[in-house]
């Protein structure tokens, strides 16, 4: 099961966090700081899976942005690693269409200014800590409905 999904920048600031298990707000900051410290300090040639307390962290870096997923040992590490990439590709697909930007989506600005949309995308992909959808078109469908409504 996926326990949490974090997007963090290189300075360690959280840009998006989603918990699939109730974690006290006061504890979140400490957990995030801990998790980020654990992943950001790692070199490129180190492996992308880090044991952290009862979880395993799977992380992947995109330019200045890190995505860190906390999972239990019933989850398949590589499939989560690729799930992160699939998620990034969905964001890419969505934002490069909507946002006119010189830099690719990996820019954290996209996420900050469109937090609600990123959440929608994430909710379409992961629900209650489980993978529900991996098909990019279907993931984006509700968002496109939303955009259409706004335009009209």
């Amino acid at each position, binding site marked *: 099961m996926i326990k949490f999904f974090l997007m963090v920048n290189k300075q360690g600031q959280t840009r998006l966090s989603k918990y699939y298990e109730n974690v006290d707000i006061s504890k979140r900051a400490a957990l995030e700081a801990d998790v980020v410290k654990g992943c950001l300090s790692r070199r490129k040639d180190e492996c992308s899976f880090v044991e952290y307390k009862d979880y395993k962290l799977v992380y992947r870096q995109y330019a200045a942005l890190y995505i860190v997923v906390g999972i239990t040992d019933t989850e398949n590490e590589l499939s989560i690693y690729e799930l992160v990439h699939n998620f990034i590709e969905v964001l890419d697909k969505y934002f490069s269409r909507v946002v006119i930007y010189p830099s690719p989506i990996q820019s954290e600005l996209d996420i900050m200014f469109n937090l609600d949309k990123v959440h929608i995308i994430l909710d379409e992909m992961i629900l209650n800590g489980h993978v529900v959808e991996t098909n990019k078109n279907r993931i984006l*469908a509700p968002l496109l409905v939303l955009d259409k*409504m706004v335009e009209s």
Partner: protein
Amino acid sequence: MPAVSKGDGMRGLAVFISDIRNCKSKEAEIKRINKELANIRSKFKGDKALDGYSKKKYVCKLLFIFLLGHDIDFGHMEAVNLLSSNKYTEKQIGYLFISVLVNSNSELIRLINNAIKNDLSSRNPTFMCLALHCIANVGSREMAEAFAGEIPRILVAGDTMDSVKQSAALCLLRLYKTCPDLVLMGEWTSRVVHLLNDQHMGVVTAAISLITCLSQKNPDEFKTCVSLAVSRLSRIVSSASTDLQDYTYYFVPAPWLSCKLLRLLQCYPPPEDGAVKGRLVECLETILNKAQEPPKSKKVQHSNAKNAILFEAIALIIHYDSEPNLLVRACNQLGQFLQHRETNLRYLALESMCTLASSEFSHEAVKTHIETVINALKTERDVSVRQRAADLLYAMCDRSNAKQIVAEMLSYLETADYSIREEMVLKVAILAEKYAVDYSWYVDTILNLIRIAGDYVSEEVWYRVIQIVINRDDVQGYAAKTVFEALQAPACHENMVKVGGYILGEFGNLIAGDPRSSPLVQFNLLHSKFHLCSVPTRALLLSAYIKFINLFPETKSTIQEVLRCDSQIRNSDVELQQRAVEYLKLSSIASTDVLATVLEEMPPFPERESSILAKLKKKKGPGAVSVELEDGKREGGELNGGGERGDTPAMSASNASTPSPSADLLGLRPAPAVGSAPPSVGSLLVDVFSEGPAAATAGVNDDGFLSSAPPPAVSEEPAPPLPEAEDLLNKFVCKNNGVLFENQLLQIGIKSEYRQNLGRMYLFFGNKTSVQFVSFSTAVSCPGELPTQLNLQTKTVEPLIEGGAQVQQVVNIECLTDFIDAPLLNIKFRYGGALQNITLKLPVTINKFFQPTEMLSQEFFQRWKQLSQPQQEAQKIFKSGHGIDTEVVKAKLLGLGTALLENVDPNPENFVCAGVIQTKGQQVGCLLRLEPNAQAQMYRLTLRSSKDTVSKRICDLLAEQF
């Protein structure tokens, strides 16, 4: 000014975010945020009704502030209002806010539930999805009460849109996890299983999560999912890389779905139906074959997705542990990964191989990779990979490679990362002992361990080396010589001084003949370390000195002088002072005979139970501690007065401080500060083996468990054993590790190991919820006549288990004589106020004490004939429960603990086994014969042993296994 997405761009929000980003300091950021919070608060409180757009904007701002780590204590009401908006964008933000920020604030939940109810009945799929997502995210009890009936209907209704089905499946899973009592199985259950056949892959993906969870809890009800999952998997695996269109990821068809299907299959044993099993084996072979094919893409995403499936398939093969062919192929595949340039693959391969090493079919295959793994330990740049390599070395270690592995681990320890040293030390110590043929090697290894990583050597480790040296006289001289040499290093670790003090105090005489290690040289060497040591070590050294006086009368005056000096006899530490005074007195007034008796060599680690421990068992509660203290004092007193008790004082003192036979042989618990232990004269062991006050709480008596501070919840009577307790027990007859019990709240895992008549069981209590368990307590008890047959020892666990956390408890077991009943384990705790009271049977069965015995055909039948009296035999004829599979049967018989004898029975279909049950009182030889009849799907099981109760019990236990 950065661009904002067109359409609903919220300019105010963009400005705010930019401001925050431009803040130069944390203070500036907080200032800006506070300003914004004040602004939003006033807007919300203002008289002017806000329009939907503004509400949405402010809620977005609050969300953003929340993500920066600031708690938000208002705005909830506004968010709830947004739920009833009929604008999708506003509704969406409302739900988002609630799912991020609301836990279970009851008043709000009712309002939220109302909105959800409206949206669920709206028949608008987008709204329905939002509402379902919200339930899945918040998932409180009230929500379960309101919707647990409705959601299964939505899930299986024919006209429900696919996307809604997906959300409904995960939503139901959430409710089932929070309140299983409210989600009732019914007509929908069978239809849920058939969602595996749904033509829509997304629906299948979502449904599997639900089915996996449900079938873990109700395996029988969901058994049909196995064949459906296999056929689904087979269709995916055999499809061309483009068949599944959008579900193909970098030329890999539906990787996530495949992983989930393979994971679901791991909830079940191998399929019984031959056709299904054949199809599955074919799938697994195809997956293994694909790993060898040239990649369809050079992209790393392609190989990752492919390997994700491969690792999951290997996990399933390991889970079945019944297909030697597949196991060996899996092992070879992982062997290739061990040398792969991707660190991720090396890591996962090491991890996966670790589980493979414990399968009898692949253990040998795993061992062939030893050089690669050792190399990984030495050269990997990533500590987590090195850690995996160390784990794997530990798992693949057996008698044939123990020396090599232990040597490699020791040399690695010199440079190992601090974070894993302690664990490494324990592993080395365990392996060294487990596979020691030659005990001087063992002693060398442990002393090396102390030299290299003294700080990480826990007390158990050095206790253990001393116990072994004491119990084996062939190694004592060697140990004394080695430790003497080790102490000569200019700087040696305090743990080395402890071992040195103890061993020289007992066996210094064995090397005293050599002038280089004459008594005085030994004493001076020890005493040169004295001033650098902590109080407990000094106390131990003082005891070693008094032992020296007995061993070497010529050192008496030197030692007395040392004891007499002010720094000892007037030491500010009361423990040291008392020892100095008492030892000085003892050495001057006691005759040589008395001295020799009092300071006699330690007896082998004990064969009989301590009188004080027995006393302790009758006592309950914290009072027991003081009993021990008083008793210790009294004995000390009597000793000074001439020692007229029947026991020799040294013996009683040593026994008093020795926890229990089982604990002794399998390693001791850490001793708490020695300062609190009673300094009874001559009780050298108090230094080393005293458990101090902890001992008082460690005993188990017939009534249950002694706890020093019983939590209030414990006043309730333990529940009677669960109805399924017997079945759970049967699951562990042929295995030692696994999950004993699991419900919504709690998971209990077991790891156990047995040697001769002793065992040690680790219980892992995992809190599956996010809420802490309070007043957690466990009690192990022996019903009926079991207390005279089994001796169990355990310690109290912490009364609190945090959500998601796990605590461990160790049970030490000693088998006194053969037994039938199983000990009971009662667990009590409070979860959200409600007392949970569960009683299980601890899977301790008589066969755990089997020592396998190899013998040839002639010998077997000779013994078989010798045991021909009717009461020595027990026989059962029964129908096979799972079909007759030779490999499975073999694995079970090995798991039973006996030796499986090949080429003994004239009929090759039959299985014969031999073993000896080791109890403290006696050894019971057992012979076993299992005759399968494939045609009738029946077995005949015959047990013969020298004791009728043993034959019968093992026959009963084993008959349940097939």
